[in-house]
């Protein structure tokens, strides 16, 4: 129980910093919107997209903008030597990992509250508005992206080339998750019921489980400064 309290405490700390400075969230939503607008222009002005292309566009915008927020999660701690302070405090590395994963999960969800409506405004003319089928896909990708991303961003923040290395290390690992999400989303945008998407949702859930376990076990090695 006390472990849960510590995770909640760490989560509250990070969300409070974010609420006061708003640096990650604003840049994520802004950059994601920018990508959506650029892809809309690249697609040809006034031309409609089908469900498969639309799904790809949505996920490119979400994944690329989420990396911005993810990079800050540990860079912020490194800047003032706060990682050492975190490790000295009476929390385990696993609790830090879970808290940081939840921070990133929340940031992605909040950014998607902006990006998904913008996506529908720009591309949605011929797509089925299915927010309830889209929701489980979004949640699963957020979870998988956050669990993998928190581990990788702890690694990349330990190097001198954080911003460059983070996407290079992370994107290959989450490629299966992204591919499954695109397939499931194109089904959702084509008005398929949720039960027809289980073929994609089940391996996505498996990905989340596997990488949560791997991240929890490997994170202590990635965060320790020796």
């Amino acid at each position: 129980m006390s472990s849960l309290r510590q995770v909640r405490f760490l989560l509250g700390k990070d969300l409070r910093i974010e609420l006061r400075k708003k640096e990650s969230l604003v840049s994520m939503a802004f950059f994601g919107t920018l990508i959506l607008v650029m892809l809309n222009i690249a697609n040809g002005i006034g031309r409609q997209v089908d469900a498969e292309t639309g799904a790809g566009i949505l996920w490119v915008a979400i994944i690329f903008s989420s990396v911005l927020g993810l990079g800050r999660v540990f860079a912020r701690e490194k800047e003032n030597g706060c990682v050492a302070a975190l490790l000295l405090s009476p929390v385990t590395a696993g609790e830090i990992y879970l808290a940081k994963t939840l921070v990133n999960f929340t940031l992605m969800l909040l950014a998607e509250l902006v990006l998904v409506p913008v996506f529908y405004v720009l591309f949605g003319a011929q797509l089925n508005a299915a927010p309830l089928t889209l929701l489980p896909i979004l949640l699963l990708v957020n979870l998988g992206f956050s669990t993998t991303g928190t581990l990788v961003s702890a690694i990349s923040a330990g190097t001198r080339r954080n911003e460059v290395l983070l996407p290079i290390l992370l994107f290959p690992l989450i490629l299966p998750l992204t591919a499954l999400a695109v397939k499931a989303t194109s089904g959702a945008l084509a008005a398929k019921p949720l039960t027809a998407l289980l073929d994609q949702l089940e391996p996505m859930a498996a990905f989340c489980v596997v990488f949560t376990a791997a991240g929890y076990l490997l994170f202590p090695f990635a965060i320790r400064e020796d």
Partner: protein
Amino acid sequence: MSTLNRTTLFPALAALLIPAAIGMVFFYAPLERTMGSVQKIFYFHLPLAFSAFLSFTVACIAGIMYLRKRQRIWDARLAASIEIGVVFTTLVLITGSLWGKPIWNTYWTWDPRLTTSLILWFIFASCLILRSAIDEEGKRATFSAVMAIIGFIDVPIVFLSARLWRSIHPTVIRTDSIGLESSMIVTLLVSMTAMLIFWVGLYKFRVALHLQEAKVNDLQTDGIR
């Protein structure tokens, strides 16, 4: 012969066996009925793919061992196997594409095995980029060990998720039978052995090189102190 010590034994063997394997591929193995001479690339493609996968397995094991023991030798083994694995996977992708163009009429398709090899290549190439970005020895070893382990965990997930698409890759070796002429099997076994011996030779060279590099580094930092 005193020059033929343990490091040079495997390269010397590979230098004999690889030309022998090439000779067998072209003069001993029969011509495949439908694919013709194009099929002969298979005798290099499969051993390369097998050795590449072996390298990533070794990398994962070396990563786990490094995190447990913190010994320099395991980092050298990890680095060596990742390097060889990336080179071999590159060759697998090239040989596969060369075969695919005349047979499938395309260099590339999103088949599970092709997708898995490509993503593996990306993951472990990014591991090499990570290694080049860190100067501190302990940190570089720990981080690349973590990446090698999660990269290896990713493989079955990649393969399973790619299987949800479609497959046109030939399954030559199944659990119940091998769809090959016996002389083809012999040729395959010889080239497989040659490739594995070549792999061990390369691996030993690279491990020794990484250890020497670390020692030189030690001497230099001691000199500054």
